[in-house]
């Protein structure tokens, strides 16, 4: 492949989902105009657009009709009436949801910024659904004790993503659509740039910058049944890890209770937020047993485990007993058409069931990655448990771990996190650049190294199909490192990951061309899956307790004594992860740890 020119920007942002686009927009808004955003798919195709249910903020626009109890119908709060929600309550819900693993300083910032961010979205043109008097409409969501999910029908992420992308364009941000970042360059704990493939031509470029930010999204694609897009292969996480940056809390992977049976495609939590029931083979609303108070609207980890228990105990539906019914018939045609149109289309398209007439078969699906690249509350990436910064390197969104979600994220908090911390990262980057940041030199030619690596991959006469390796990995992760885990299965999982890493050396790329070689990209992505899956499994094996989404049947209790701490994983000399642990920021007197009950 021919040599290609070096591209230079003040700021390079990788990822154009909510996190990346907010950061780009905010940076440009603050006067740092030379911003380049790289995205492996067109920005508007980013997975943020798939989010359905809503984005949390205690706006206090609606409440349950007085006298109907906490699960009663909702109405707008009349002017001057008592408010039902507060940032304090939002904070508490988030902490409880996180099973006390969330850093409370970060959570406090998030719930406070939330209100501002939602209004900013609205002022930028986002079309939210409305209450009769014209305020932003809100609905209930799992684990939240007030209706605070601000929504746009069931395509909230879609309208947010389009709004913020438009604003970034307005502010003159330069987008590189369909550029695949394959390496991060960090020397002496300071970032220098990235190496990326221009997918269209196949040319590999070095891009230098004073600051680099990662908003590369989640890693749900490591699992067989997942709600995540094909693109969510956790590239950013793996690339950073390979460059020597640590990863935090990777073992915490959220399983969403309502993925479409066998497809994993999401049936938004809004289905339950609007009042849908979960039903087992015997027609029972089994959540009565597991969360008598919140029922279907208990947090996701709990509902998913309840479903899995029903399934494991033989009360699942469908031929193989692996499903559960999501029943929305009682909501009525009108409500479904108005509030959940997309969800209905999905059910009709993929399982040929119209939720208006029949219950929809669902099953738990890998959904969200709580872990990621550790950062402080300004999006500044940290290099170790004591918080040493990686100079010029920022991260936000699902790829990062601030950590506001701790061991389990509440629905609607992640769009919020991506927005709030994307924006904060943008502000911090602008300040960093204005403070006189320098373009640091790069040793050697990293692009040439990447070119060699790609050439080796292409020239490899191997016999293994990449897809087979990836499929085996995913099946392995779902089976042995899924909703319920134990030492035995995790050991099997680890062996399997090691075996697959070996087999990957013999992988064959079928497409040898340079133009739009998605086969090559899929190979690089598979490599990334193998890289961080090892961290997930090892982290899960080490953590001998059950907390949030990490549920060890051999250690069923939460163990605050030993495990109220974040896992930090570095890539060791031998290529294997090395673990250390970081304290959780807690406000002991305000939110003392308690048992999680719903």
């Amino acid at each position, binding site marked *: 492949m021919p040599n290609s020119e070096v591209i230079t920007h003040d700021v390079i942002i990788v990822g154009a989902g909510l996190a990346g686009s907010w950061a780009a927009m905010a940076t440009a808004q603050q006067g740092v105009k030379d911003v380049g955003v790289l995205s492996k798919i067109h920005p508007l195709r980013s997975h943020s657009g798939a989010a359905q249910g809503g984005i949390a903020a205690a706006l206090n626009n609606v409440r349950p009709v007085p006298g109907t109890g906490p699960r009663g119908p909702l109405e707008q709060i009349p002017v001057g009436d008592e408010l039902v929600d507060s940032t304090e309550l939002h904070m508490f819900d988030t902490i409880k949801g996180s099973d006390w693993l969330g850093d409370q300083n970060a959570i406090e910032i998030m719930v406070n910024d939330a209100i501002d961010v939602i209004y900013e979205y609205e002022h930028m043109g986002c079309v939210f659904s409305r209450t009769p*008097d014209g305020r932003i409409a809100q609905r209930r969501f799992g684990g939240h004790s007030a209706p605070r999910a601000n929504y746009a029908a069931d395509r909230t992420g879609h309208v947010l993503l389009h709004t913020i992308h438009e604003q970034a364009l307005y502010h003159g941000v330069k987008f590189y659509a369909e550029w695949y970042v394959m390496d991060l360059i960090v020397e002496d704990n300071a970032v220098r740039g990235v190496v990326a493939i221009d997918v269209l031509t196949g040319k590999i470029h070095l891009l230098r910058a004073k600051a680099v930010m990662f908003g590369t999204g989640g890693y749900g694609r490591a699992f067989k049944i997942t709600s995540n897009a094909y693109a969510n292969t956790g590239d950013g996480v793996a690339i950073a890890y390979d460059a020597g940056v640590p990863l935090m809390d990777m073992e915490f992977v959220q399983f969403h209770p309502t993925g479409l049976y066998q497809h994993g495609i999401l049936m938004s939590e809004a289905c339950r937020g609007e009042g849908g029931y979960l039903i087992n083979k015997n027609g029972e609303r089994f959540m009565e047993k597991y969360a008598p108070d919140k029922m279907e609207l208990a947090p996701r980890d709990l509902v998913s485990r309840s479903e899995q228990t029903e399934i494991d105990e033989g009360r699942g539906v469908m031929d193989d007993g692996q499903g559960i019914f999501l029943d929305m018939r009682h909501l009525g045609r009108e409500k479904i058409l108005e509030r959940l149109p997309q969800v209905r289309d999905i059910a009709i398209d993929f399982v040929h069931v119209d939720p208006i007439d029949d219950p929809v078969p669902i099953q738990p699906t890998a959904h969200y990655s709580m872990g990621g690249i550790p950062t402080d509350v300004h999006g500044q990436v940290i290099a170790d448990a004591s918080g040493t910064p990686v100079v010029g390197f920022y991260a936000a969104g699902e790829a990062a771990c601030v950590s506001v979600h701790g061991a389990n994220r509440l629905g609607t908090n992640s769009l919020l996190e991506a927005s709030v911390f994307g924006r904060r990262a943008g502000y911090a980057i602008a300040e960093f650049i204005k403070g006189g940041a320098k373009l640091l030199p790069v040793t050697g030619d990293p692009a040439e190294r990447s070119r060699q690596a790609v050439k080796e991959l292409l020239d490899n006469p191997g016999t293994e199909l990449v897809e087979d390796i990836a499929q085996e990995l995913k099946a392995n992760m779902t089976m042995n490192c899924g909703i319920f885990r134990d030492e035995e299965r995790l050991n099997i999982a680890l062996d399997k990951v090691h075996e697959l890493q070996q087999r990957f050396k013999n992988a064959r790329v079928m497409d040898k*061309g340079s133009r739009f070689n998605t086969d090559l990209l899929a190979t690089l992505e598979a490599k990334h899956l193998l890289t961080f899956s090892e961290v997930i499994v090892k982290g899960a094996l080490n953590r001998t307790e059950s907390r949030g989404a990490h549920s060890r049947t051999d250690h069923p209790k939460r163990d605050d004594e030993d495990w109220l701490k974040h896992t930090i994983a570095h890539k060791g000399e031998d290529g294997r992860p090395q673990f250390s642990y970081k304290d959780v920021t807690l406000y002991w007197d305000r939110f003392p740890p308690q048992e999680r009950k719903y």
Partner: protein
Amino acid sequence: MSNNNAQRTVTVRIQRFNPDTDKKPYMQDYQVEMKPGMTVLDALHEIKTHQDGTVTYRRSCRHAICGSCAMHINGRNTLACNTPLKNEVTHKNTVTIGPLPYLPVIKDMVVDRTTFWEEYLRVKPWLIPPDDIPEKEFRMSQDEVKALHDAETCIMCGACYSSCAVIGLNKKYIGPHALLKSFMRVLDPRDSSPAERLEEVSGADGVYRCHTIFNCIDACPKGLNPTQAIETLRKLAQKRQKLEEARRERQKHLNEPIPA
């Protein structure tokens, strides 16, 4: 349409073209075992990952929300990811797949969308808000929100754009996708320059270049109606000053509750 489940293996006929190596596009057949619930995208994935890695297409979300996978399936534009394979298998047990028409092919089903995005940018998709921004949200009525439904749902997949015969002739035409976007801003009570927007889209390459061919409605995988939006823009373009005045008036009350 064939609902015959007894047919297990189907022929997927794909239009192949790599400008680096091929003089012109050609068709290539692949055999795929049809599993229950399989979509056209699943079939492509099966081919790409197990039979021929050079088969190239875009995809990401796989549930009709990201807009990547629009392509030409059995003679019409749609999304591969939410189209059940079994609905597309013809009586000859074949599905024919090609790139979106009228656009330059980059490779197989991947088309060059440069003009598509240029037009999107040209209509200034962002909101131009009024000068005073309230502390809380602008108040919008539920009906005002409803009017934006179609435009707001658009996933920019380009199925409409590349089905429109006018685009086939003239890439200077703004196109249904961007006109729909412009419509969204023109109708948004929070936008303060509807007249200027109407000016932009009512040139010779704008709403009047549309010949009401309706392919855009037929092609839209989200069931949207760009034609009606274009018709509305044409009407509004006639009375832009009036609209501008009405907008000023409306914006005086953006901060107040919508009366019951």
